[in-house]
């Protein structure tokens, strides 16, 4: 079960020492429920800001974002946290794993925030690690895992709360080619199995072509493919 994404006139400006910096300027696009979109563009195009806004890490300043019919413009604080917990699964370029926790504990972490019992959390974490092919590495800390394995753990963590929208920020940016393919295939399999919507930011044109929909950005504007 995924969500449809609707963006209308989305603009975003940061205040910097040098003055206001507009990173998104009146962006419009839609992604279908269960769709697969790749956001591409050079550095500074606004990809990460767009992903932050879609993931509820920031409040939209101007324009409208609807995720699964829910208007994010009216959400703040705890409501945004609840939205992230219930709807979003994040996969970061740098994995975002806590070095002090084992693979299983990293996966469990997402479950601790929604009040799941420790036993249930543990079972769910092991189930997901098994699903990403890392059941035998559950007790290992991130420093003992390869880049591809770390990203697979991160994907398992993103799936704990059964997200309807999976947001991946350069998920293969730190991986070699083989690992990249494995991770992308895993993300695509997750999408297929769970029916969630997948939005991926990538520099990699080849990977972007795998998506059903490409959203190329440049200086905060959508450009032609």
């Amino acid at each position, binding site marked *: 079960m995924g969500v449809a994404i609707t963006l209308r006139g989305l603009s975003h400006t940061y205040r910097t020492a040098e003055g206001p910096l507009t990173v998104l300027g009146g962006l419009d696009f839609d992604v279908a429920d269960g769709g697969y979109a790749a956001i591409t563009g050079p550095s500074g195009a606004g990809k*990460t*800001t767009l992903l*932050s806004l879609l*993931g509820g*890490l*920031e409040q939209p300043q101007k324009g409208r974002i609807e995720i699964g019919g829910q208007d994010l413009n009216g959400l703040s*604080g*705890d409501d945004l*946290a*609840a939205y*992230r*917990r*219930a709807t*979003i699964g*994040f996969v*970061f*370029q*740098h994995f*975002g*794993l*806590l*070095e*002090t*926790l084992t693979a299983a504990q990293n996966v469990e*972490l*997402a479950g601790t*925030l*929604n009040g799941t019992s420790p036993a249930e959390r543990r079972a769910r974490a092991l189930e997901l690690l098994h699903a990403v092919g890392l059941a035998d590495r559950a007790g290992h800390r991130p420093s003992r895992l390869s880049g591809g394995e770390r990203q697979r753990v991160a994907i398992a*963590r*993103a799936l*704990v*709360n059964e997200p309807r929208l999976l947001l991946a*920020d350069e998920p293969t940016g730190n991986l070699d080619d083989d690992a990249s393919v494995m991770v992308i295939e895993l993300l695509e399999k997750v999408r297929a199995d769970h029916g969630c919507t997948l939005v991926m930011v990538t520099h990699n044109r080849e990977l972007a072509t795998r998506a059903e929909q490409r959203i190329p950005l440049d200086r905060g504007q959508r450009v032609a493919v």
Partner: protein
Amino acid sequence: MAATSIRRRFGRSVLTVAAVALAATLLTALVTIAGTARTKVLSELSKGGPLSGINVAAAEADPTQVDTDDPKPGPPKDLDDSIRAKITAMPDVKSVLPIVAAVVNVIVPEPPANAEVLARQPPLPDTIATTTSAPQSTTNSTSPRQAVPGLKTPDPFPETMVGIDLDRASLMPITILSGRLPVPKSLTEVAVTQGYLTRMGLTKKQAAAVVGTEVQLGAPRVFTDTGLPRRFRSRWVRATIVGVVAQETAPGQFIVSLEQSRAARNWTSAGSDAEGRVQIPTSPYSGLFVIANDIEKVNQVRRDITELGYSTSAPENLVASVQRYLRVVEIVLGAIGAIALVIASMGIANALLAAVRERRREIGVLKAIGARDRDVQRVFLFEAGVLGLVGGIVGTALGYATALGVSAVVNGYLAAQGLKGVRLGLPILVLLAAVCGSTLLALGAGAMPARRAARMPAREAMEAA
């Protein structure tokens, strides 16, 4: 998560805990030592008895002197069981202990060969025989030493024996310097005061020298039989000195059982006053030692007793003054410890601020997976609380150990000075306050970094990733 963070930054955590522990150590040690010093000084003031004790004299009161510690008693006034019962029934009175003093002649350590001695085995006085021989030895549990090298042998002298309820002697203002108190109801054991040591030419340090020696106490009586010249005779009792004490129950160098002093008093009272040359006691009690429920109630009880018409004395002003000074010392020492704790808490704040800066990515990840601001805040507060609690527990234990060490050194010094040592109490409240205070201060110190972490924009945190 907070626990793993502490483990991960083990070195820094240890240093932070050490700072808190050091501060808690200082606080606990200073307050414990100050508190014990206070107890010790006040205990010295009350000479072992309760601080809320009041001496009631068999004398008329001067109501204008009720607020003075040691008022001048008025003319004699009998103190009997009915008065004792009235005082016992007063509100705020915990106990009333009788004191019976009797004037005796004293021979140390052997009576002169020509002394006229009535040798009597107690109880007395059913039959009295006149003799010029030395008193018979009395049975007691301590083997008497007949002579002690260096002891003076003073001439017979008049003194007062103070009879108290030895079963409840611990409630009275008596401190044992050497040996022990006579056993309750004993007629053959006596404890002496420092005045006796002085008379014997001994110092306080040499108190043990008189323990085990004998003394003979003769209660005087004047016989005025018709047609015969007036005769003075004494009821002699040979007693063993079993201890040396400091006491403030009543003037007198000998502490004996109530039975002993009553027997002496009755013997003297049965005689003539020799036309005023001998003071015949009429009051059943020469004094009462009244213990109030609380030191704060002493003044009220004194007023109540004064209303009954009896003179009282109590070291309430002295105790209050000393209490005030010691309280100031305690506050100053506590403040030093508290300042140390505040400095340590700044260390916690600094360590946590550094942790917040270092863990931006971690905070971002937490927020990205759905953590609310308060969830993030809780992680850092928990970490601060753990550092404070562990530091507090370790520091409090070390502080108490330090106080024990200091008291051992102090006791060594006091013993070398011939003084009684200090027994360090276990100040549960101080220990609990130190642990709780450390934890609360740490939580306070962690509040700002925790709030900063919680307010960190999720977007910035994600960029740090």
